[in-house]
């Protein structure tokens, strides 16, 4: 079956899909490595992005193509966002191993937490949903200054139950702020399934209650995800206010490396979910359009493995941070 890629959404080219696929291969390889290093006792904690990659990468590409500038407020599962934004595999692994030179927090925080301002990513907190008002505040500041930043606020399905998400969405909508609320709905919050989390099928249905546009799409489908995000980004960029984009994804691994999902999730369900693996889906799509061959795919995987091997070596060789400055940066001036 061949597929033509002529009817791609505005701004998305076939070459983008090839680039996204290459990134996805790199990130999956990295994610698998991190998980393995946890099992080797080297990485203390991991929340895997496996199954979320298409949604995350599509959102980044949409932000790039449809805004003059943007900023991402991510959460712990957004490895594909941070890497697409330029956090290198070595820097990423320095974080997972809590090593000196980790750029987001100096390894003061869990991996993927802190800030990389030059790469437009902030992920301050482990307290679920506290960053959503921050994203709104960042957008408010951008609007006040008259700059053209669109802010992407990422969260999970469970996170949407928090009061601060409600408050922040209402606030953003009343003030017509340039925010895209991106919900990566993997249908679980640790062990709690969606039907125990909320009494609606689609989280995006709540958008109406805030007077904003909401949409739900298949988050394992890069093209659908891109299209939904692009529309929301454009609305924000045009001063039309926030939107809620729900991307239905899969979580292939337990919540984190500390979780045992076998007690609450049937293996058959995960096997079923694997059938829509975003990596496989995108590869098949590219192959059917004549943009990917098995040989090229093997090359990509090989090159990703080499890059991650080198990053692993570099991160393992790095020392742990010195405790010399553990008392610093409480205030601007040392007191």
């Amino acid at each position, binding site marked *: 079956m061949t597929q033509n890629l002529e009817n791609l959404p505005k701004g998305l080219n076939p070459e983008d899909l090839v680039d996204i696929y290459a990134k996805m291969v790199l990130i999956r390889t990295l994610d698998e490595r991190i998980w393995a290093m946890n099992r080797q006792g080297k990485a203390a904690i991991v929340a895997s992005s496996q199954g979320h990659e298409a949604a995350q990468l599509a959102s980044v590409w949409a932000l790039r193509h449809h805004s003059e500038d943007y900023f991402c407020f991510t959460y712990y599962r957004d490895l594909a966002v941070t890497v697409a934004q330029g956090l290198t595999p070595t820097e990423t692994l320095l974080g997972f191993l809590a090593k000196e030179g980790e750029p*987001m*927090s*100096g390894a*003061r*925080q869990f991996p993927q*937490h*802190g*800030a990389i*301002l030059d790469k437009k990513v*902030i992920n*301050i*907190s482990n*307290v679920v949903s*506290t960053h*959503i*008002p*921050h*994203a*709104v*505040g*960042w*957008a*408010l*500041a*951008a609007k*006040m*200054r008259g700059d053209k930043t669109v802010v992407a606020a990422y969260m999970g399905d469970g996170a949407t139950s928090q*009061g*601060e998400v409600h*408050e*922040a969405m*209402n*606030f953003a909508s*009343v*003030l017509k702020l340039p925010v895209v609320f991106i919900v990566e709905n993997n249908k679980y919050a640790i062990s709690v399934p969606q039907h125990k989390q909320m009494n609606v099928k689609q989280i995006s249905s709540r958008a109406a209650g805030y007077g904003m546009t909401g949409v739900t799409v298949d988050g394992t489908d890069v093209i659908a995800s891109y299209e939904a995000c692009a529309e929301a980004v454009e609305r924000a960029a045009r001063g039309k206010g926030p939107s809620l984009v729900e991307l239905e994804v899969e979580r292939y691994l337990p919540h984190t490396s500390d979780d045992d999902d076998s007690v609450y999730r049937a293996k058959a369900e995960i096997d079923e979910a694997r059938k829509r693996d975003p990596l496989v889906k995108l590869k098949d799509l590219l192959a059917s359009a004549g943009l990917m061959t098995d040989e090229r795919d093997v090359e990509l995987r090989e090159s990703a493995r080499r890059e991650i091997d080198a990053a692993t070596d570099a991160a393992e060789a790095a020392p742990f941070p010195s405790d010399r400055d553990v008392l*610093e*940066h*409480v*205030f*601007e001036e040392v*007191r």
Partner: protein
Amino acid sequence: MAMMTVIEAVREAMREEMQRDASVFVLGEDVGRRGGVFLATQGFIDEFGEERVIDTPLAEAAIAGVAVGAAMSGMRPIAEVQFGDFVFPVFNQIVGEAARIRYGTKGKISVPMVLRIPYGGHIRGGLFHSQSPEAYFAHTPGLQVLCPATPYDAKGLLKAAIRSNDPVVFLEHKRTYRAVRGEVPDGDYVVPIGVADIKRYGDAATIITYGLTMHYSLQAAEVLAAEGIEIEVIDLRTVSPIDRDTVLESVRKTNRVLVVHEDNIALGVGAEVSALIAEHAFGNLDAPVMRVAGPDIPAMPFAPTLEAAYMPTADKIEAGLRRLLEY
């Protein structure tokens, strides 16, 4: 010099800072056309416009959280919570988030915001409009907690707070708003954060206090002065970080200390002050450090008799001083 009330001083500080710096703005419930429930932002909407004087939805966590986000991106928001008793929805954002963002990014991001909180009782505010929440915040490294008592300090400290690159919890005692008048210099000045002020000099004993009870302490000191007993009154002004030097120096001079605050006694600011003195000036003490503070009941009750039973008034402070001096 101009005579003004505390609320006028607060308003002047914000107005001047908003005129001086376009990144300063206010947000909160009713701060716009209404000018805030205590009129702290009266007239601001006409002078600065809706963009910088933001009437927010009734949602304190968002008010604080949005302020945190705007501050992270370089603005200088002044967020208002209408009453100290309604500050708990912002706890997550201020204690949990704002306080550790500089630390958690190893200095890359700061949070130059001010959270303004009208607080305190003796105004017939009852259980939910009287509370003194300073100790909750003062326990948190990364926050600066200010409790001015006079118009001069309110204006100078609020300006310092707005210019600070770290988050400030700014507590304004509601009873002082209109009841306390004082001289405020014309033009720009700041009162440094973290520096206490000796409001009255004396040698018989030291009262360490802040907020409304600073005024009641001065009244009590006047009563003893009529008997020839001179009490030193230290106004902490900043309850975190505490000005240890001023406190300890006074203890070394007077050798007797009474800590006074309206907040309830257990684990309040007075507990920290007492511990500091015990650790660093034990040998200078002629009597144990004593405290006059609110009783350990959840908050100040409503009926006048019950409120009076709670409130550390000048009478109670005077009695406390006599106990201390007799020891």
